[in-house]
């Protein structure tokens, strides 16, 4: 390895008054993640999640069946006067939807000209109203950032209380870290002009969450 690397490690160990690498991993609370102090939730996780999405300037629809996603999306487009041209993730949760035939739908990564993206979240975190999005063939990351309107479908079963719970779910269900994990809380914003919050800086101007309860 490089001389720089060697010297940095030598210096670190000298400062730590140690001359060799540790023989065994240090004992740390990370081996018992359950020890984290967790903020108490005021309500049940689903209600709390919805409140927090609103607080972060997102909007929420609650529907009872997966097939209702189409109607909820249609309503959303209608509310905002948007053309039905969408880029949709091929995530299993939303891949079987029967979109109206006249809508322009494409899958795959988002392109510069895509204005509306529909994706699926791996989990929702009640504590902060955060969506956990995992990248992959069925959930390209560009979809989370390029479109002006970001619509995210999440199953109520996947709403967890705290971020630690989402990590636990993730460790149980994926074998390797996806290339990108996005924790998304509300739409894009900036306060760089005189500390005034303005939504839609570089990423989505609006974030709409569709929660499926069944």
């Amino acid at each position, binding site marked *: 390895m490089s001389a720089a690397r060697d010297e*940095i*490690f030598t210096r670190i160990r000298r400062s730590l008054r140690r001359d060799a690498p540790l023989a065994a991993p240090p004992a740390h609370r990370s081996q018992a993640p359950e020890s984290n102090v967790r903020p*108490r939730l005021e309500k049940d996780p689903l209600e709390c999640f919805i409140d927090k999405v609103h607080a972060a300037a997102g909007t929420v629809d609650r529907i009872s069946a997966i097939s209702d996603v189409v109607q909820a999306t249609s309503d959303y487009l209608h509310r905002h006067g948007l053309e039905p041209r969408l880029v949709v993730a091929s995530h299993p949760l939303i891949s079987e939807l029967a979109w109206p035939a006249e809508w322009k739908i494409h899958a795959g*990564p988002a392109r510069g000209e895509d204005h509306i993206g529909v994706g699926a979240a791996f989990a929702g975190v009640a504590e902060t109203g955060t969506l956990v999005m995992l990248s992959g063939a069925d959930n*390209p990351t560009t979809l989370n950032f390029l479109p002006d309107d970001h619509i995210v479908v999440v199953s109520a079963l996947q709403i967890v209380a705290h971020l630690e719970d989402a*990590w636990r779910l993730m460790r149980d269900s994926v074998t390797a870290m996806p290339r990108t994990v*996005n924790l998304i809380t509300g739409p894009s914003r900036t306060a760089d*002009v005189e500390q005034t919050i303005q939504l839609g800086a*570089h*990423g989505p101007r609006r974030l709409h969450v569709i929660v499926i309860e069944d």
Partner: protein
Amino acid sequence: MQGSTTEFKRQAEAALHDATLQRAMAKAKGGFVDKRRLAVARLPEFAQIRAEAKAIKEHTLAHLDYYLEQFERKVLESGGRVHWARTADEACAAVLAIIGAASKQVLKGKSMVSEEIGLNAAMERAGHTVVETDLGEYIIQLAHEPPSHIIAPAVHKTRDQITDLFQAEHEKYGLTERVTETEDIVNEARQVLRTKFLSADVGITGANFLIAETGSTVIVTNEGNGDLTQILPRTHIVTASIEKVIPSLDDMTVLLRLLARSATGQEMSSYNTLSTGPRRADDLDGPEEFHVVIVDNGRSDMLGNEFHDMLRCIRCGACLNHCPVYGAIGGHAYGWVYPGPMGSVLTPLMIGLENARDLPNACTLNGRCGEVCPMSIPLPDMLRTLRFKEHERKLSKARARGALKAWGLLARRPRLYQVVTALMTAVLGSIGGRAGRFRSLPLASGWTQARDLPAPQGATFQRMWRRRR
């Protein structure tokens, strides 16, 4: 436009007279403070989480070599590469080597380490085109200025100034209309930068955390620029310093609970993004190459010495926002990359105390920074420790040292002290007693240029007390 740390006093005074700057600072002033206060009040567990965060960082620092090696191993396992740099120059060289010889379009997400190592200048010298994508960074790049705040780089700019800047700089894109409203300003920047995002070759971001468990780098942003910067170009380079590593995702979770609350008063920033290696075989987007450049630049020496605690810093900016000196003069007066309390500690350690003698002294030790620091860094104590070092190395002004010495001799001799002070107060009291104050006084111009000096009541307490009893 970058000032100089040796010119602090002059720059501070200029800043105090800069009406535009003062307008901008006045607008920012209360916002950060109030938002943080509310956010902390809404989290009853704040104190506990703060203690937990400190313990996590202390544990990591005590085993820093272990976690850095674990992090490196995980990055390699996920197909990324790790580069080590002892100094700023080595770090720039590492980045340039990754970018390659041909001139490239480089996008940058906000990164304080890249400011510290002077990366933009190095890339431009090498013939690359560099575009900052964070709106604040973009604004100051257009103005050819350094950031004046670690999380709000353009906090010193008024909206009018930004309007003028955009009009001058965006004409070449055919955008000739003068944008004055915040919404239009933001939209225009979005429009200009969007085309850059879609055509860049290399994206460079910083990292708020490096996670040893997974080999992930983490950025915390609100705009989404950092994400576009790192998923659209072919190559993603992360610049990060050694103390950014933490053991696990759960540890990151603890720190995230403090970071946004302390910085902007949000519970969570809009985008917290973990990047692990390059795109996978079946991914539809993401970079094909992933590099992490890990920079030491003096930090390994701080480990375990009297400035060790500073390595816990998560760059939230709360100490700046609550510093009355920073609030009065803004960030540029400090003359280097890191302003405010954290900068007054870090800058002398990075560029040499002899080059930044004012910074540890330009502070009233009022303690507000230490009080709000989510990582419980005793900033005032460290500033005082730097003063000890200045005194030991005789870096302070000879006249000030002389006065201090004379006072010290007197203060250690109570009898003599009482005689001298009784005399002084008697004289001052008799001259100033009727008016109650002095408008000016020889040897006291430092005091009297800004305020009157209240006159002594006439005799010292000690003398009156002895007389009465």
